[in-house]
């Protein structure tokens, strides 16, 4: 499986602000690579550099074997881009946007475009400025997928969408990846990303603080759900590896970072009436990583 996106020590500095620093990562062909991070963590700047829109201050990036600072940007013939920002030309209708795409991308697939327009039920004659946010995102996906991309770069593409459209879009992303398209997506939709991503990079203050596969990421932490007849023993609260304990009635959720097996054994020794080991979700993991990186106040993050 070849490496489609490769960055080495990539960085971007705006005056004194280092928006992205020393990002080294690879994305394999046909995989879905998620980028998560707090607002202002450098996700969009990173994607902007992959598209050649922003000039890196340091390091280098290659997409589909081409340097992103290639003057003519011909690699973008094979790159689809979707953003949650105002993407379309105001004066254009849906039909005009499609006509522009057809003339711009040499690999444009009219049949695929018509199929996608029909499946999304997008009205061809409507001005894009009158489309709802969901319809705009759908149209952006129609454009991005009709150019027969080898790479899809998605920047908050699912933000602000209702659950139905979001699910539809996520399914589409999975289908594309299954057909060999490499997807790099920055998102705050951690639940959605958890379902579809193969690998994920956590950004904080421009740096990648954790880069791992989805499965490995989930193994970073465990949740042990237990019920004790006389309340949670003190030994468990202070056991090594225990991050914190959440209490919900008689049910205790013990969040464990390391040595989960030892903590589980300790629980068993205290005779729980109910005990189950669960995976933590991405949101939990994300909050934990941000906490470790010193983002925001502890009581706010762990509330």
């Amino acid at each position, binding site marked *: 499986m070849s490496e489609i996106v490769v960055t080495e020590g990539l960085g971007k500095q705006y005056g004194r602000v280092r928006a992205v620093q020393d990002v080294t990562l690879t994305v394999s062909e046909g995989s879905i690579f998620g980028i998560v991070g707090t607002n202002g963590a450098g996700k969009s700047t990173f994607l902007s550099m992959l598209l050649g*829109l922003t000039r890196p201050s340091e390091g280098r990036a290659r997409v589909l074997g081409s340097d992103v600072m290639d003057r003519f940007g011909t690699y973008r013939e094979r790159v689809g881009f979707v953003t949650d920002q105002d993407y379309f030309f105001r004066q254009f209708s849906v039909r005009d946007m499609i006509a522009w795409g057809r003339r*711009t991308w040499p690999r444009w697939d009219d049949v695929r475009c018509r199929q996608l327009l029909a499946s999304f039920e997008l009205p061809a004659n409507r001005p894009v400025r009158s489309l709802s946010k969901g319809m705009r995102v759908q149209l952006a996906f129609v454009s991005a997928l009709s150019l027969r991309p080898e790479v899809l770069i998605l920047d908050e593409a699912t933000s602000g969408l209702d659950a139905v459209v979001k699910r539809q879009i996520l399914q589409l992303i999975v289908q594309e990846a299954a057909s060999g398209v490499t997807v790099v997506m920055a998102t705050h939709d951690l639940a959605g990303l958890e379902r579809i991503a193969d690998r994920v990079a956590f950004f904080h203050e421009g740096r990648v603080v954790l880069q791992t596969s989805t499965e490995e990421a989930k193994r970073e932490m465990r949740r042990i759900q237990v019920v004790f007849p006389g309340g949670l023993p003190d030994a468990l609260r202070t056991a090594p590896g225990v991050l914190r304990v959440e209490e919900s009635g008689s049910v205790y959720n013990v969040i464990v970072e390391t040595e989960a097996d030892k903590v589980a054994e300790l629980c068993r020794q205290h005779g729980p009436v109910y005990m189950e080991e669960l995976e933590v979700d991405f949101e939990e993991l994300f909050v934990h990583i941000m906490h470790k990186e010193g983002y925001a106040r502890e009581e706010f993050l762990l509330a």
Partner: protein
Amino acid sequence: MKSSFLPRGLVYKEWHQQRWMIVLFLIATWLLPVFGSIAQEFVVLTGHVSYLGPGLSEGSLVWFSQTVLVNPSGYGIGLAPWGAALLLGAALWSAERRGNNLETVLASPVSKAALVRVKWLLGTATIFAVNLPGALLLWLEARGAGLDVNGMTVSADVWLGLAARWYSTQVGMEWLIFSLAFVAAIGVGRYVMSILWAALVLFMPLGLTAAVTYLMQESAPWITHYMGKGMAGYATPDIQALSPVYGTLQNWVMTLNPESYYGTFSYFYMPQMLDFVLPVGGVLSILLYVASLVLFEHCEMERFRRVFCLRGFAMSSLMIVGVVPAWMLGILQMSSDVTAHLQSMFDHQPWHGPAPMLVFTLYFAGTVAVEVLLWTALRRFLRSRQARREHVMAVA
């Protein structure tokens, strides 16, 4: 692999986005002449020739060429297309900066150079095309000199060279104005600011030369009466005699200035210097195009997805645009007017106080203060409107 010289997608997009601006350009250039011609034709055909007065009793073609094209002072054909050229230069970029369009375009397989090229060539082609009918009409009239049309003889006031001269001068000026607004729009990034900047650059030479000449002249009352001790008064020839460069520069600057160009044309007097307007305007336009390419190549899609070619340029340019006219007006108007007023107050006796400079300073400060207030109010209004729109979009 190289991208094509004129990418089809970009040409389609620019035409689609700017076609109404091009129509506006066409209207700005030809609305009055066309209306005038139709009205004239109507008057001639219905036999009410006498209503038009002496010298205007020929066919509409002759009237059109002589009165509207060559002597435009009464019809505004000279100024309207220049305004349209300013708008076009600025509009080509402002269309991209609404929303995130520049990001959309640059995420497609086109180079930055191709984007600048397509836009500039579209503007240039528009200018060359829109003025063609005028030259054709002049040429037609020159061809028909001495012929009898509807019982009237077409005069020989128009000759072939005039058509070429009219076309080249008109195109040369509009091209230069368009290119100035074009490069300003890349740097400034705002529609109104780029127009102001281009206008400032166009009229600044005239203002500066006039100011220098006026300030140093012995006839300037405030020099003779109030600042004469440290500064000798000069006559215009004295100033020009200081350096041959100044006089030459002044002549060129005056000739290449829209106001003097307009004034010269309105008297149907065209010195040979006007023949250089197209070559000079063309060379300057091409240089401005190269400057646009260099500037845009160094533009980045910066933080918050806004494009800043020159950071803080909008605000600083506002100050400059506001301060310079205030400075010039303050000197040219207030000093002489207030001085005259004070002289009359003090019974024509020289007054040795700092009043003129004080008044000028107050005028200067007041103008800037008013501008800042207006600018702040405008920004607040635009932001609140944007917030309302976003709210409506979010609800939708």
